[in-house]
């Protein structure tokens, strides 16, 4: 013990040169987070230069209208991917939502409101079921949501075997036509969606979503209610998917039992395009929505270039790989800096 005292005295006199971050290094400016926005501006600029009429209010309104379902689906997917999972069933939920809306809604306001609420509840319940399967049955999200997707798609087919059905005119009136304070209603819907997300992100629940995606085990050790958080996240995803379904039904004035299928992979692609890691714990919903817009703009760009839009998926794919490569580079550089 005596020797230890000598050592302690001798050492405490020295200047500690223990390595590590000093206070100067704080917040990294993450340039890589700007990639989706840069792409967005670049694409928009290119499109506008090709066809200046694109900047008119009517065109923008139409575009926004068309993009809203994908934006909702992308948000749903982003939430789940943030927790480190994935949700393939949102396609089925969307299809089922359109099926119910197109077959059950009556012309009265009461009927519209009631069935809208039912559809939203169905979406939330579908999501909750996903959450329960993933947490209590410990099935990996990919498999769990693949299974539930088939189930909901099946129910959709049962409710509405063929594309068709009717939508009450009143609903279309309320949601789509007319302006509120000079702006199309779709703008308000988008703004509400983003505000909704920003509010959630600021709460402890929002922090928990990121924590569970980053390291679920440590989140558990730190006292987070992991199971509850996951179930809530999947429920939100289902809710957003059913909202997307409602809007799409209004758009097309009809339901379709397979309406949701194209959204599944596209929503995941949008999330990745927005810079989110599939591992979860990092990224945001707003960049993901930007990613969705980018994917849609690519389609427009191809059209205006006079090329067949059959090439769209290919171009989207190539861009996706480029974006992932850039993100990986950013990741690698961060790692190297941390080592030093």
């Amino acid at each position, binding site marked *: *013990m005596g*020797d*230890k005292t*000598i*050592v*302690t005295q*001798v*050492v*405490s*006199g*020295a200047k*500690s*040169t*223990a*390595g*590590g*971050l000093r*206070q100067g*290094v*704080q*917040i*990294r400016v993450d340039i890589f987070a700007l990639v989706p926005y840069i792409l967005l501006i670049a694409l928009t600029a290119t499109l506008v230069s090709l066809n200046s009429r694109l900047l008119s209010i009517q065109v923008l309104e139409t575009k926004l209208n068309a993009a809203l379902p994908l934006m909702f689906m992308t948000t749903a997917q982003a939430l789940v991917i943030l927790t480190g999972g994935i949700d393939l069933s949102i396609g089925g939920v969307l299809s089922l939502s359109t099926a119910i809306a197109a077959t059950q809604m009556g012309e009265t306001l009461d009927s519209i409101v009631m069935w809208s609420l039912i559809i939203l509840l169905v979406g939330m319940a579908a999501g909750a079921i996903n959450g329960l399967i993933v947490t209590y049955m410990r099935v990996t999200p990919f498999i769990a949501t693949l299974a539930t997707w088939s189930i909901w798609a099946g129910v959709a087919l049962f409710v509405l075997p063929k594309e068709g059905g009717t939508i009450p005119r009143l609903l279309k009136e309320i949601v789509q036509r007319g302006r509120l304070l000079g702006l199309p209603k779709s703008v308000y819907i988008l703004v509400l969606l983003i505000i909704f997300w920003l*509010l959630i992100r*600021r*709460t*402890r*629940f929002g*922090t928990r979503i*990121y*924590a569970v*995606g*980053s*390291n679920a085990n*440590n*989140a*558990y*050790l*730190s*006292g*987070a*209610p992991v199971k509850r958080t996951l179930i809530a996240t999947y429920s939100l995803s289902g809710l957003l998917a059913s909202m997307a379904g409602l809007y799409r039904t209004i758009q097309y004035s009809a339901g379709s039992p397979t309406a949701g299928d194209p959204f599944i992979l596209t929503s995941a692609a949008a999330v990745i395009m927005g810079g989110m890691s599939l591992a979860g*714990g*990092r990224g945001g919903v707003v960049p993901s929505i930007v990613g969705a817009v980018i994917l849609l703009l690519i389609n427009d760009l191809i059209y205006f270039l006079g090329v067949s839009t059959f090439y769209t998926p290919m171009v989207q794919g190539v861009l996706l790989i480029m974006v992932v490569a850039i993100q990986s580079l950013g990741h690698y550089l*961060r790692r190297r*800096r*941390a*080592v*030093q």
Partner: protein
Amino acid sequence: MADLELNNISKRFGGVVALDRATFHCTAGEVHGLVGQNGAGKSTLVKILCGVVQCDGGEILLDGKRLNFGSPSDGIASGIGMVFQELSLIPDLTVAANIFFGHEPTGMLWGISRGALRQSTLALFERMGVEPIAPDAEVCDLPLAQRQMVEIAKVLARDPRVIIFDEAPSALGRKEVDWLLEYVRELAAEGRIVIYISHDLREVMQVSDTITVFRNGRNVGVRRVEEASTDELVSLILGRKASRLYSPRETDIGDEVAMEVRDLRGGVRLQGVSFKLRCGEILGIGGLTGQGQDELFRGLFGIQPIHGEVLISGRPVHIGSPGSALRQGIRLVLVPEDRATQGVVAAMSVAQNLSLAVLPRLQRWGLVARDRERVVVEEAIKRLSIVVADVNGPVMRLSGGNQQKVVLGKLLATKPRILMLYDSTRGVDVGTKAEIFQLLRQLVAGKGSSVLFYSTDVDELINMCDRVLVMRLGSIEAELSGEALTEENVIRASMGEAVKEGAYTRPPPVSQEVTSDRSS
């Protein structure tokens, strides 16, 4: 009645009994040390105490009240905080978010107030009396030592009634360790119940008032620190009398050079290191943390670019990556610092980990031959005395010391010529350490292999190594051997002061003495 009582706690994991009707009593206002070998049950005991693990039987009484835990959040709610050995931080969240996780200051609409979060974090660091770490820095960007400080801050932020330190200072620098030991005593003086787990007996005796020893899942002795001696504690830990920890040094090392490095530079800190590693030698690298030792080892191993010359057996080589070293036939391996993330493959079983480095040798027609694999695995387990219930079980289920043995076993299976160890005995229990040291001695005995050994434990350095090169500010400050190889000289060189040549005869090993044969 004691303030904290754990009575008759039992716990099994599959076929292994971790705790066998164990008892543990603590009083508030003092530091209670908890020691024992890996697998003795101390980690399991405290994990039950904080709710991470549920016991099969027994009761927990805090201030006379019976506690029932289903999860860590129950433990936290009851005022129990644990500084985890393997850290419980969320990598992608900021320092502030981690520290106040679950009880962040909220403002409007349930939103977390980021300003208040930042302020509270800085205020906490100030109360702790340490240099603040940037609240908005992401934990994954921080070096291990700082992450450890964040982990400690996180527990303190909840102002817990019971604090458990599980190998808390293992990656901290000297100054931080001193701070911690003093702070632990302060925390106890404030009336809390403080439990301190460590493998470093000197440390435990320095900081504790009472010490409990666990062995084989049972409480085998409680002593007041004034009445206890290291020898008595060691024999309680082992269940038998002690003998030397370190085998006598080889004094007869030839001149044949296994590896020579000239003017190595790289990274931020490595500023020109040159030395020769002789065949059959255990060469130690010492010095304060952060003097370039990290870059040196990474550079030699090939995971960090460095400049300078490296000669293996007289031949100049360029090691661009560990794979490239393998392809050139250079049998050089590295046992890393952080076994959980860099050493074992957590998702794989014990057997898979052990055979991982030699898979090409185990192939038959492109498939892994299970019989050959089994031979390798059994040999490693036998050679290193790895305690494992099921070789096909996940490697993470093993205790820290045994995991380290798995890492070592995996690398030894490649029959390396140069074995590099980077602070690999951190948080490893006394018995396992002795086994590892004996193994290293055996390895170099035939002069076929050499060892490059970095440790922050000065005692280990002077007893294990034939020579020690003390690094400071990126280059070698002093080379110590023979009579000059003393604890005092290593410390002096670490700080840039002149060493005393042969002024003292080598003092007897101050540390724990242990037998190297454990049959527990």
